[in-house]
């Protein structure tokens, strides 16, 4: 169910950790809060859970106020009808797996038979059907993570909050759990708010991504949208390597813009909404560059300075008069340091940012 924050501010002492934050997290979707360490993701999540009390603002879950600084309303966590998966999993070591998973039901006085059935169902969903009677401490990290997950889905809640639940797993398991988590969410249709600082995780998991920076949201949108149409340099760089090229946009007629650099024309693109002629910064992802023969007289000329072979692809640094450009090509492409090349940008994949490249 929809979770909404309005002008929420949280300070610890003198430092403002969340700064007048407003956001709406869609019902039935996975919203991912993404950002560098210390930007306030966990704090935001804990404010929604009721584990922290914001200084000002309003938080609603499913249209009901759970926090409102005006009037001093703040529901305790146990009355917000939510579930949460903690980064440390928070598996109670003095209980068995079943007791851990069943506690949200016991806390609300569900009857024993119902409880047993719900616990069985939850354990089966996370693939721990046979582990119910184990002590929680006799589980591997990945299994503990599943117990925490089972505990969060054992009863229907308005929203499940997850704070970097996969960060303690090894890389392979992390990717597998990512898929399972998404499948589980699709099956149950629950609203999930998921915190991570891993952009791959955010991209592959999120229906919507919220990029945090110093207690504010810089940009929100579908992963592709945020990746391909970053609102600022910071956002563009957060999602991986990006080349920034200064250019002047000149109208070409029929709604097209020519992007001219001091080394010649870069591309002619369909003018995006609101684009005006004048100086622009072109954000070009490394994979948007194509290498062509310099003899053709096409593209920006340059010389390959470095080449890192990855396997399925290779990363090149091409020295040009516009500065060094990061280029990703397929692994079998023959290129070596010192080669003279020319770079051509895919017009579809040039994204214009306002202002100057070095701003």
């Amino acid at each position, binding site marked *: 169910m929809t979770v909404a924050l309005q002008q929420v501010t949280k300070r610890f002492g003198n430092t403002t950790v969340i700064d007048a934050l407003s956001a709406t997290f869609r019902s039935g979707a996975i919203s991912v809060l993404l950002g560098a360490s210390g930007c306030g993701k966990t704090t935001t999540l804990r404010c929604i*859970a*009721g*584990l922290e009390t914001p200084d000002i603002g309003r938080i609603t879950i499913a249209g009901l106020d759970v926090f409102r600084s005006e009037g001093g309303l703040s529901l*305790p*966590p*146990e009355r*917000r009808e*939510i*579930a*949460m998966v*903690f*980064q*440390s999993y*928070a598996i*109670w*070591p*003095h209980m068995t797996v079943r007791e851990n998973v069943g*506690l*949200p039901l016991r*806390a*609300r006085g569900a009857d024993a038979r119902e409880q047993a059935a719900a616990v069985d169902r939850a354990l089966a969903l996370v693939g721990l059907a046979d582990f119910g009677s184990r002590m929680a401490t006799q589980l591997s990290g990945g299994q503990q993570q599943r117990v925490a997950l089972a*505990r969060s889905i054992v009863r229907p809640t308005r929203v499940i*909050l997850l704070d970097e639940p996969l960060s303690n797993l090894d890389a392979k398991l992390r990717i597998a759990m990512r898929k399972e988590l998404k499948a589980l969410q699709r099956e149950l249709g629950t609203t999930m708010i998921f915190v991570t600082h891993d952009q791959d995780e955010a991209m592959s998991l999120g229906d919507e991504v919220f990029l945090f920076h110093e207690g504010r949201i810089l940009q929100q949108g579908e992963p592709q949208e945020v990746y391909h149409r970053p609102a600022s340099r910071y956002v563009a760089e957060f999602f991986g390597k990006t080349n920034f090229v200064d250019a002047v946009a000149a109208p070409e007629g029929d709604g097209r813009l020519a992007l001219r650099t001091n080394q010649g024309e870069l591309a002619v693109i369909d003018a995006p909404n609101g684009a005006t002629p004048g100086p622009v910064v072109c954000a070009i992802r490394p994979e948007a560059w194509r290498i062509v023969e310099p003899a053709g007289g096409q593209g920006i000329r340059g010389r390959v300075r470095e080449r890192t072979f990855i396997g399925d692809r290779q990363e090149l640094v091409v020295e040009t008069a516009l500065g060094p450009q990061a280029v990703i090509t397929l692994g079998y492409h023959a290129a070596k340091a010192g080669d003279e090349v020319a770079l051509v940008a895919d017009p579809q994949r040039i994204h214009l940012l306002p202002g100057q490249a070095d701003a």
Partner: protein
Amino acid sequence: MRNSSSALARHLPHLPAVLIVTVTMLLPLAVLIIYGFTSFEDGQRTVSLKPLARVLTDSIYWQALGNTVGISLLATLVATVLGTALGWLFGRTDLPKATLLEQLATLPIFIPPFVGAVAWTLLAAPRIGAFNVGLRNLGLPEVLDIYTPGGMAWVIGIYLAPYVMMMVAGALRSMDPSLEEAARVSGLDGVRTATRITLPLIAPAILSGAVLAFTIAIGLFGTPVVLGWAKQILLLTSRIWIAAQAVPPDYAAMAILAIYLIALSLIANGLQRWLLGGRSFVTVTGKGFRPHAIALGRTRGPCLALVGFYLLLTVAAPLAILIAACLSTYTWSGRFTLGNVAEIAGSADVWDTLKNSIWISVVSASITLVLGLEIAWLANRTKLRGRRLLETLALVPVSVPGIAFGVGVMFLWLHAPIDVYGTAWVIILAFVGRFTAYAIRPIGASLMQVHPELEESARVAGYGWLRTLIHITLPLIRPSIVASWILLFSIFMTELSMVVLLYSANTRTFSVLSFETWSTGIFSVLAGLSILQLLVGASIMLFVRRLFGSRALSNS
């Protein structure tokens, strides 16, 4: 590693530790058992159950056993309830001035049990106790009587509460706060989270604290004698002392009673191990901030009052009453004098015994510390065979009640061919043997926190093991070294239960002098001596802390 180094050279670091552990710890206990299960007839020692049979068939010893168990259990209850409440307040709530109050609340540990007992005599003894005098003046009945099993348990318990408190507060602090938060999110309210999650999680710590309190309680000597003598409520420790005073001393009874105490301690520790089954729920996560303190809200006032009341009962009132008594012509005459102070200051006996106490304590604490350091280092930092066994053996005496251990030391040196008995060395050997564990544990714990790679990188950089130890390891664990030395010193300065069996005319310590003064019944002088003892202990502690403890390197 070169293979040419001989077996002897490789085991060289072991040897002093092995030797001292054997002589100061294992032999006294062995001799104690021998005295308990043999008898000496016709110039020959033979295996015999006579001593045991004699003690088992004498009702006074059954009574002493009953008193010890009953009073110690009651005292443990007092200590556990108080200690858990205090530990929770300090470790988990937003009690104001918690850091300061917590430090104050550990002070009772540093008040010698004997001094506490003397103060409580002055506070709550029938007729002379200040509370009772007050009640009498108000025309009320004098209800307090500290000379009862309940009174004894109360005094013992309130002074043992800090041990439970420290364990509970420690467990609460190292608990992963998200365990409680997860319970709240799952639908438990604050109270049910406390009872269903927090309490079970810290139960092992509470249990350890209770068992520790019990093992200390059964071995106490000063408190039960001072408070129990008037009505002849005698405990095992009092009986051991009485047997030692008999002419000739009743060695057989001493040995069996000491073995009783050891058995009680073993039972308590065994019970703890059985209940816990090796479980410890303390879950340390490297991540995150201090768990959110629980807001006390309107109960803040009463909670503060509880802490204040505790400090009043254990520290403030006893100190005040000792000072008042010391300045009175005789107890509660209402007339004041500096005569007692002058008498104490002018007494050669006071200064001689004080000197003895100080040098014996300094030497013992230093030897104990070096031995503890060596054993902890061997156990944690070498691969020598038998290092863990050595550590385990060295930890045994700490669960042997002091007076029982003292009996073993006494038997060992009584008939030894070298002259140790009657000199200060017998006291020093007893201290070292009984208390090395107090150095091994904290030093071992902080050694474990120093990552071996810190030392290994020094070795790689070219330091030998000794220079690595001196320049890297010791500075890193210095806080625990200083803290251990101070703790040992303050224990030794006031130790009575072993000294009372081992002292001689030349090696009377200050605590012995106080004890003798108590038996003469001159309370004003006794109060003065108690204050002096506290002052000397406190000033040496401060001095050492200032000298060595200023820079804390570890994040403890």
